[in-house]
């Protein structure tokens, strides 16, 4: 049920077994799954039922480094979270993604693809997309891979009725997490259990501010949640921001002193890498459009390459004619073959767009800025740069794709000049990112190298968990939503296994 938090009195205390912050794909999946299993769940959403400028402006922040989207544009502070921006691309991470990028131990996951596979079918069902991802070997080093497509599911729309009718899941809107108060190591703050084997801090309560009216024009209520465990699912930037801020308010004593929170933040750079003429049947374009190709895992591992995918987007008949005419001048037999194929609709032109994995870099990070928002929380400052290695990744991968397309007679590729000359700018846009916010609260078995453990529990805190793509140690090329939902279902199993 939705609870009218704006009717609470100052100092109100709400209690639950589990408190989940955020109602995006991670938060809503987790909260609903737990509630379905009989758990008493309270979900706190900072945004309202509908998009409001006054809510969204609390996502403003600064970007230091390469051009990036406005931080108040590339995520949503509303019931359903950033699923409202989602394009619907579904794909799980590859096994070699979780094994890590060769030579980059920071990119290795402490869990394997086998830990997420059991949740693939249910996650796909939630996202209303097929759960099978068949691949075809298209050459010794090349795989024709595939995405599935969600409608896309908008979590706020899909689960609004459920939230209204559930008697186990309570939802408070327009209510922002502003602080957490540690207890003394016992579950109820009594001191009992303070010396348990784990020896970590426990969160006793979370402090919440609910705004009445747009931007708090009609006042604010400060209230508290007491719960046995808290799960932060605020998104790939806010998770880091809030952990940093809560730690700051607790004199930096809440989290391990390892300066990891916020670091290793990642995006999926993407850009057009070339144009091509393709034999449509060999490129799979009679089966689906667009098609996707990737280099095999063994090729990537053998050449120290992060992962990348190439999307083949068909272009016009006129463009095909023009490209074939270009080739006719330099390779007449091929040019004639292409022109003949175009007239028979067996050959088409395509623009090749790639989305590639950004190697985790500790200098790409979320930090607290100097300017407070209207709730007094420092605005986020996002440090993000494409390292020179990103150019190497995409150049080497594109050339390998072009070579294999020629060898296997799938088509012929003309990589753009910037692929071979890293002094040239990216061609399409100043911003070469994807609204995919990953890392910052990375998962690691070793507390010195990560923020959460393989069960997504914050190192050093006994009852605080993190959900969402901020826990990714590395990013692969797959759009993150399916993995976010898989991880949320896995976390639900950890917190309350199905009966």
């Amino acid at each position, binding site marked *: 049920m939705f609870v009218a938090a704006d009717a609470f009195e100052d100092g109100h205390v709400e209690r639950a077994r589990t408190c989940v912050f955020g109602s995006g794909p991670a938060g809503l999946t987790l909260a609903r799954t737990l509630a379905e299993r009989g758990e008493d769940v309270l979900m706190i959403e900072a945004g309202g039922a509908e998009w409001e400028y006054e809510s969204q402006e609390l996502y403003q922040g600064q*970007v230091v480094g390469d051009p990036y989207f406005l931080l108040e544009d590339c995520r949503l502070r509303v019931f359903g979270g950033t699923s409202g921006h989602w394009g619907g691309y579904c794909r799980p991470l590859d096994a070699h993604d979780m094994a890590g990028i060769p030579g980059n131990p920071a990119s290795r996951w402490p869990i394997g693809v086998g830990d997420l596979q059991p949740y693939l079918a249910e996650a796909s069902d939630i996202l209303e997309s097929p759960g099978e991802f068949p691949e075809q070997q298209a050459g010794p080093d090349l795989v024709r891979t595939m995405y599935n497509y969600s409608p896309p599911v908008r979590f706020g729309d899909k689960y609004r009725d459920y939230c209204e009718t559930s008697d186990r899941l309570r939802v408070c809107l327009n209510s922002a997490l502003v602080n957490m108060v540690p207890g003394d190591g016992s579950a109820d703050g009594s001191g009992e259990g303070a010396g348990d084997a784990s020896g970590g801090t426990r969160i006793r309560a979370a402090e919440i501010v609910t705004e009445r009216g747009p931007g708090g024009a009609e006042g604010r209520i400060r209230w508290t949640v007491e719960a046995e465990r808290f799960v932060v699912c605020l998104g790939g930037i806010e998770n880091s921001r809030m952990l940093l801020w809560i730690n700051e308010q607790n004199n930096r004593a809440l989290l391990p002193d390892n300066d990891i929170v916020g670091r290793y933040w990642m995006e999926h750079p993407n850009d057009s890498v070339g144009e091509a003429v393709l034999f449509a049947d060999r490129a799979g374009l009679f089966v689906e459009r667009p098609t996707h190709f990737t280099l095999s895992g063994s090729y990537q591992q053998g050449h120290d390459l992060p992962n990348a995918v190439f999307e083949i987007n068909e272009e016009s008949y006129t463009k095909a004619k023009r490209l074939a005419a270009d080739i006719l001048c330099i390779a007449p037999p091929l040019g004639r073959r292409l022109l003949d194929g175009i007239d028979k609709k067996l050959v088409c032109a395509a623009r090749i767009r790639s989305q590639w994995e950004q190697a985790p870099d500790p200098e790409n990070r979320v930090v607290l800025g100097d300017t407070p928002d209207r709730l007094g929380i420092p605005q986020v400052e996002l440090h993000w740069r494409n390292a020179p290695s990103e150019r190497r990744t995409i150049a080497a991968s594109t050339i390998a794709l072009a070579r294999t397309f020629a060898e296997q007679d799938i088509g012929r590729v003309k990589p753009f000049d910037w692929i071979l000359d*890293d002094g040239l700018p990216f061609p399409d846009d100043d911003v070469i990112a994807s609204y995919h916010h990953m890392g910052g609260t990375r998962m690691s078995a070793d507390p010195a190298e990560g923020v959460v453990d393989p069960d997504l529990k914050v190192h050093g805190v006994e009852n605080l968990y993190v959900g969402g793509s901020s826990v990714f140690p590395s990013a692969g090329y797959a759009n993150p939503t399916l993995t976010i939902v898989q991880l949320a279902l896995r976390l639900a199993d950890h917190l309350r296994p199905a009966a």
Partner: protein
Amino acid sequence: MRATGKTGGRTGFWRPGRRSFLTGAAALALLGGRGLWGRVVRHRSGWVLHERDL
């Protein structure tokens, strides 16, 4: 939806005016096979072609 000058100017490795072929050379070195390009060539037009095409 796009970033403006607020997010800073163009910086970093793709700064206009800088020319480096290191990436290209490194990428070519990764191709493996028979020599850098095997039976595949990059024509001066930019097209990556198989030797049987020519």
